[in-house]
């Protein structure tokens, strides 16, 4: 038999083990490739804001999240591969003993199994890269079918090549040690179950004697095979850490970012404006989830300004709160500021004279419906020369915005706050309405925002408003802002769902890993299970013992992973998280489902094994 056919036959003979290793590696590579391609495509993460979507404030949450998840997925991949190779080699110890007893030198044994490792690693990395690209393409179709424009540029193949090479090298590096150790084992030891199954090793601790028999056996098996137990616990802890960060972080970050959008836009708000202004408003809002060009637009044209009779009629209606706004788009200029050195007392100037276009929104400070997530403070009625700028504008045009000013036409306003706002993708400046009217010489607003009190019949009042506006000026429209709000929230929801979907890959890889562990543990204990069955234990007793072992392994990894995952999410990744009772239950639910799914999947080999004939069990592996 040629060397090649020996290797291929050896891999094929252990179909399940080989498949598990290749599949585990495939999932790790695929999830990393998909994560990075997806991050590149939606404009967050690795290539931050490449296509001008998502405001800087949102990206400040998305980016570290994606980078951290990518890092964890990468680590999980390395740990899983190392474990899989360890399991693969552990099951070949006897074969290695046979080869060596037959006179095969160490270097040849090492060569055989390294070549096997090379085949498995190449197959896993190659399939992973392909599946990663396929998943990325599938995500584009999915987003498009949901009505979102996602960049259709070809996948960045450099990312794919980089991940392929990195995983390939790491898999080989982490697999070499167990191969080397196995190749060095003495034939006598390789044959002896007493040695390689740890049968001559007293259990590390005694469990209380009145504990259940199955639990006693399970615990002693875990402690006797300490090295493999520690490996699997470490591996699963990282997986659960990843799952927790993705699930808990995803849910909390989703709620936090949703609350930012909801508060900035306001809920159940009705916008009344000229139909062109309404269209323009939709366009400005859609920049949050779609990269769009906005052609020149003159906001202060006479026909766009809200006539007094509309304002009077609305003011006369019962159950309405009214806010008027003036929107314009114009050039702004950064005004340098200065900071005083605390100890030296010297003055340092910050900023430059950068120029850019911004959406300027004049608001009545005491009446605004929005509540922004912000740094600094919002406008007040007493000072007309203050401004609040959007997060993207602050990042793009200002060095230390809160110490600087903004030049608008010939006026310089002090920046007192930076807010997160999806409109015009964060390129906005809020100023007092009167100030803006003075600067532009416009006496009227071009937008009226109306909030209908919950005490009145919303549908009825809305119809009344529509009738009145229609009769006063047919070019004016009544537009419910919930439509754009839902679009923004939907976009955020889908992005987070896609990110939360990622740990599924890792969870699946971890389940394969656990199945590998269960197969190893069954192989090592098969004779003992056979003895138990021969002396009267039922098949379910075998399943009980294996389940208890799996459960102990899962529980210890779960505890470590979840605790660290929550700490990292809340303390590092999300500033000012929004957490409700419902959030806690939702996170707990998902994490319990993850635990249960992993547990159930990993029982598969035990269920099959428990039904084997007693004599087959008792036969040496």
């Amino acid at each position, binding site marked *: 038999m040629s060397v090649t056919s020996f290797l291929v036959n050896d891999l094929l003979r252990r179909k399940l083990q080989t498949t598990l290793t290749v599949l585990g590696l495939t999932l790790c590579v695929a999830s990393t490739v998909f994560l990075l391609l997806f991050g590149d495509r939606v404009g967050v993460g690795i290539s931050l804001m490449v296509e001008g979507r998502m405001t800087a404030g949102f990206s400040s949450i998305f980016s570290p999240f994606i980078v951290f998840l990518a890092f964890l997925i990468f680590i999980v991949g390395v740990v899983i591969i190392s474990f899989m190779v360890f399991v693969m080699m552990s099951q070949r110890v006897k074969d290695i003993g046979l080869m060596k007893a037959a006179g095969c030198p160490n270097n040849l044994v090492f060569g055989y199994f390294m070549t096997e490792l090379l085949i498995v690693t190449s197959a896993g990395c190659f399939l992973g890269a392909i599946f990663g690209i396929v998943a990325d393409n599938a995500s584009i179709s999915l987003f498009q079918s949901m009505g979102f424009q996602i960049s259709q540029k070809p996948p960045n193949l450099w990312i794919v090549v980089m991940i392929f090479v990195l995983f390939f090298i790491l898999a080989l590096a982490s697999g070499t040690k167990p191969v080397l150790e196995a190749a060095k084992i003495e034939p006598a030891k390789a044959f002896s179950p007493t040695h390689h199954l740890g049968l001559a090793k007293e259990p590390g601790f005694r469990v209380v004697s009145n504990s259940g028999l199955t639990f006693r*056996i399970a615990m002693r098996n875990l402690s006797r095979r300490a090295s493999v137990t520690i490996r699997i616990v470490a591996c699963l802890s990282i997986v659960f850490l990843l799952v927790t960060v993705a699930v808990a972080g995803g849910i909390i970050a989703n709620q936090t970012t949703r609350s930012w959008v909801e508060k900035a836009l306001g809920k159940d708000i009705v916008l009344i404006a000229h139909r062109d202004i309404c269209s323009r408003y939709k366009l400005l809002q859609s920049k949050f989830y779609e990269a769009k060009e906005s052609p020149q637009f003159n906001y202060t044209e006479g026909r766009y300004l809200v006539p007094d009779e509309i304002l009077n009629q609305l003011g006369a209606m019962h159950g309405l709160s009214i806010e008027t706004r003036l929107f314009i788009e114009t050039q702004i200029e950064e005004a340098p500021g200065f900071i005083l050195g605390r100890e030296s007392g010297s003055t340092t100037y910050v900023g430059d004279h950068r120029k850019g276009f911004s959406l300027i929104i004049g608001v009545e400070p005491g009446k605004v419906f929005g509540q922004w997530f912000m740094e600094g403070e919002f406008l007040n009625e007493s000072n007309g020369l203050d401004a609040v700028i959007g997060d993207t504008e602050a990042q793009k045009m200002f060095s230390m915005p809160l110490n600087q000013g903004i030049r608008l036409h010939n006026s310089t306003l002090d920046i007192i706050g930076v807010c997160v706002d999806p409109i015009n993708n964060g390129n906005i400046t809020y100023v007092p309405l009167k100030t803006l009217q003075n600067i532009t010489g416009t006496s009227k607003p071009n937008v009226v925002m109306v909030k209908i009190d919950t005490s009145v019949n919303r549908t009825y009042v809305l119809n009344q408003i529509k009738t009145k506006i229609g009769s006063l000026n047919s070019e004016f429209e009544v537009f419910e802002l919930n439509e754009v709000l839902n679009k923004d929230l939907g976009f955020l929801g889908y992005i987070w769902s896609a990110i939360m979907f990622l740990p599924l890959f890792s969870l699946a890889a971890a389940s394969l890993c656990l199945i590998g562990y269960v197969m190893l543990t069954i192989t090592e204990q098969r004779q003992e299970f056979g003895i138990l*069955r021969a*002396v009267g234990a*039922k098949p379910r007793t075998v399943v009980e013992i294996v389940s208890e072992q799996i459960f102990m392994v899962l529980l210890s990894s779960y505890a470590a992973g979840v605790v660290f995952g929550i700490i990292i999410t809340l303390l590092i990744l999300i500033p000012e998280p929004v957490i409700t009772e419902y959030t806690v239950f939702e996170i707990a639910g998902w994490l319990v489902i993850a635990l249960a799914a992993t547990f159930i999947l990993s029982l598969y080999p035990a269920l099959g094994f428990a039904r084997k004939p007693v004599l087959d069990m008792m036969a040496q592996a």
Partner: protein
Amino acid sequence: MKMGKGKTVVSAAFLSKTYQTSDIKVEVLKDVNLKIEKGEFAVICGASGSGKTTLLNIIGGIDKPTRGEIIVFGEELSLKDEDFLSDYRCNNIGFVFQAYNLVSTLTVAENVAFPMEWTRKPADNIRKRVEELMETVGLEHRADHFPFQLSGGEQQRVAFARALANDPPLLLVDEPTGNLDTKTSLKVIQMLQKLKHDGKTVIVATHDERILALAEQKLLLEDGRLVSLE
């Protein structure tokens, strides 16, 4: 559930067992007919590979025949499912394996106790029974040791104690002296004598002439066929 009310304990008719690999077919047992009565001490002898262990495995319910009938305590074993056979092995059979087959993760006392735990006996009863059996096999001082800390003879005695734990009506013993030195073998033979004296139904597979001398029914397996030596 204890069985063993009838006079005939084991009855086999045209029992055959064939092992088949991809292209090789090995017929280990060929049309074996056998009857063992209650309280009888039967010995099956034969050369290595003659099928002694296979026959014991089939009687013990851990293997199934390819053809023929095997009735133990009135139950046709080849028709039973795994759950029935587990109960059957636990309550009615004491099996002493040639390789002792002790559970390495359990102490000597636990190895003796665990068949009783399947039957959900009270913990106190189990403890007393273990003490009694450990005394019977002379290993009280080894109760907390693990199997790998015992010699072959000691492991064999633990295997006997475990086989007797549930006081089974039928004891199957496979090559009990095969792996032991002369002195230790004598101890095992003494134990078998005691079991015979106590009226247990015992079937022993062995080459050992000294055990053959104890037999009330002597059977020889030759090329898978059973012949009576009487």
